[in-house]
């Protein structure tokens, strides 16, 4: 692994809670590592397992899916459905021999700016420790 290697992490986050929480971290100027890129969806229920697989086959080193807390979903229960799918995806990753820690689902509310910063920091640290996505090597 190169010394200056930085992980490529995709964040798919919901508009109402986690995206708003990430904005709050911004207005509070809470600093966190820049190694994440965000795709906004209206609800984590929208997150098709395909997106996760696509990200990993494209070479993402980690994927973070973040939504509202259970019971707080703007669409009643989309986050339950999203979380359920992420559990399945985690076991799928394990089955194909990939560290399931590369995929993380978290729950960050619109008032949890500080938590968002912590989550990103934590995901970046975890993925950095795991190193580059092994599929990238295989593809070569």
């Amino acid at each position, binding site marked *: 692994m190169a010394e200056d290697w930085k992980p490529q992490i995709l964040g798919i986050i919901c508009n109402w809670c986690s995206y708003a929480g990430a904005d709050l971290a*911004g207005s509070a100027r809470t600093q966190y590592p820049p*190694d994440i*890129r965000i795709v906004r969806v*209206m609800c984590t*229920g929208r997150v098709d397992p395909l997106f996760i697989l*696509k990200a990993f086959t494209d070479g*993402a080193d980690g994927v973070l899916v973040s939504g509202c807390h259970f019971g707080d979903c*703007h669409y009643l229960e989309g986050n339950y459905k*999203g979380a359920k799918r992420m559990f399945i995806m985690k076991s799928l990753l394990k089955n194909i021999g990939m560290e399931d820690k590369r995929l993380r689902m978290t729950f960050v509310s619109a008032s949890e700016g500080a938590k968002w910063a912590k989550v990103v920091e934590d995901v970046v640290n975890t993925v950095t420790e795991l190193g580059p996505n092994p599929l990238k090597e295989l593809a070569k």
Partner: protein
Amino acid sequence: MAEKKTKKETAPKKKEAKTESKAAAPAQAKKAIAPAPSAKDARIGVFICHCGTNIAGSIDIKAVEDYAKTLPNVAFAANYQYVCSTPGQKIIADAIKDHNLTGTVVAACSPRLHEPTFRTATKEGGLNPFRFEMANIREQGAWVHMHDREGATDKAKDAIRIAVAKASLLQDLIPKSVSVEKAAMVVGAGVAGMQAALDLANAGIKTYLIEKSPSIGGRMSQLDKTFPTLDCSQCILTPKMVDVGRAPNIELMTYAEVAEVEGYIGNFDVTIRRKPRGVLTPEEAEARGIVGGGCNGCGDCDPVCPVIQPNEFEMGMKPRKAIYIYHPQVVPLIYTVDFDSCIKCGLCVEICGDKKAIDLEMKEELVKVKVGTAILALGYDMFPIEKKDEWGYNKFENVVNSLEFERLICASGPTGGHLVRPSDGATPKKVAFLLCAGSRDNTGIGKPYCSRFCCMYSLKHAHQIYEKIPGVQAYLFYMDIRSFGKMYEEFYYRIQDEGARFIRGRVSNILEDPATKNLFIMADDTLLDRPMKLEVDMVVLAAAVQPSADTDRTRKLFGVSCSLDGWLLEAHPKLNPCGTTTAGVYVAGVCQGPKDIPDTVASAEGAASAASIPIHKGEVELEPYFAQCIEEKCAGCGMCINLCPYQALSLVDKEGRQVMEVTEAKCKGCGTCGGFCPGGAIWMQHFATPQIVAQIDAFLLGGAK
């Protein structure tokens, strides 16, 4: 010259795009999906905002702009100091025309802030407003990587690349306009809910006012005096209560709660659970054919009832019967049977006689109403201060909380306004008030926030005992006195002049003398820097406030978020303090955060005004993020039907086979169906699978080729 040439070349392309979008409209009408615009034809304009130094301070704007120009499909890129300003928006509109753009990307703040602004600018340039995508390089860029210019600049480049990929595939969308029911709902009938309901009703809007307890009035009706004017709380509140009871536009439902909420702004279908009251109003009696019957509040039933219970309104310090009213000024003046303690002896039914007002077999009733907008005014409860064990609440008889003090000093209270010690009924001569009891508490037991009105009511309490008890001494243990309002600081001086002693320091412990029931207060006088011990007759804890017990359940029904401490979350703390993230739902009063009475009433009037706007307008636009079925791909498996939380999807027969159909009015665009469809047959407008996959590819593979 070169520019002109491009213009000529691209002109037919734009026409193509237009005809394509026109073709999309009828296609949508018959619920088939228009093909997504091909990224090949896309011409995207990128506009990068400096936001003064907010963004430019941490991001190399020039480098980002130069990079954006190299991206596929980018036909134009520019930077500007403030893109949201009038000239900034003009740059977007002009560029669309001058460069035949098919989509726009603004790299600036959060779409949650300025998406509507830039959609309008895009529309002004002649494009469909949904051809716009935002790259958030401020809240999720410059501001969170302030000391990492390189990292923040790289992230901004990627964010723009991702946004361009999506913008290249965006479709024309037409927001759905829905009519707004000319009725509103207010949940909670404390002073906030009453004020909001009165304002709505006076504006000509039919308003349903829902209150969980048997009478309206809320916490304010339990107070004796109000600071700093010393107006009698009931005297200024009861006229409003009477107005609410009489207003023809207000349909008051007391002893009721919201059971279910369906629908969206303009068309909320709310189910209200009317708890069995056991007593009929005159109107209800008439409906049952009892002429001249129903409860007239005579109170004949009260003396005959053999069951005695503590009166919640009097903080349990006065008895009530199983058939009861809280106090003589209740609105509506209708008795209530407490079925949890009623033994159904029937004595009340007997004495009620021909009025036939009492029905001990009454069952709960579900009522459905349709409203356009709703206001939550759910109020507060006292923090259970017994959790702060060191102050001995519930352990020592002469330690009371401030709401109990209000009842004890109130002329209509259990003692007729004579302050007495609960242990022996004696008049206290030394009374200590503990401020910040459970507020501004970082131990994890209390609340970290300031409850905002305790300083002022404690000053008022001190004044009241000086007014009523000759020779009394008040001690106020405080951290800081926060007398921030109009005439509040002057009130503070007045109480100082009246002789109250202010001790700056938190009380570490309270002990009781078992013989006299007097209390020993151990504290640290931080101004004199010495520990102190003080013997008093009575202690009043200015306990913190917390969201009322039903807040969490009710807010979830309406889809309203809360902050960490449980108070309802406003749409924007400064610029939209009465709105919430659920369109058509507003908040008023303390349920949004601690407020004194003037602030509560002001927020209620604000919420009423906000809630009346869609109703007066008559229609609202819904964001067109609906699901659509791609019928060629739909296998009719029906998996999506159960996933939809809104019952918006159904299977229909089409050309001899079953396919899914979306009822757009019910679909809220969450995409839960689209995230699961095994055949990829669901097209989530504006968040379609090809669009999101393009974003992922753009991030990881460096953009669509």
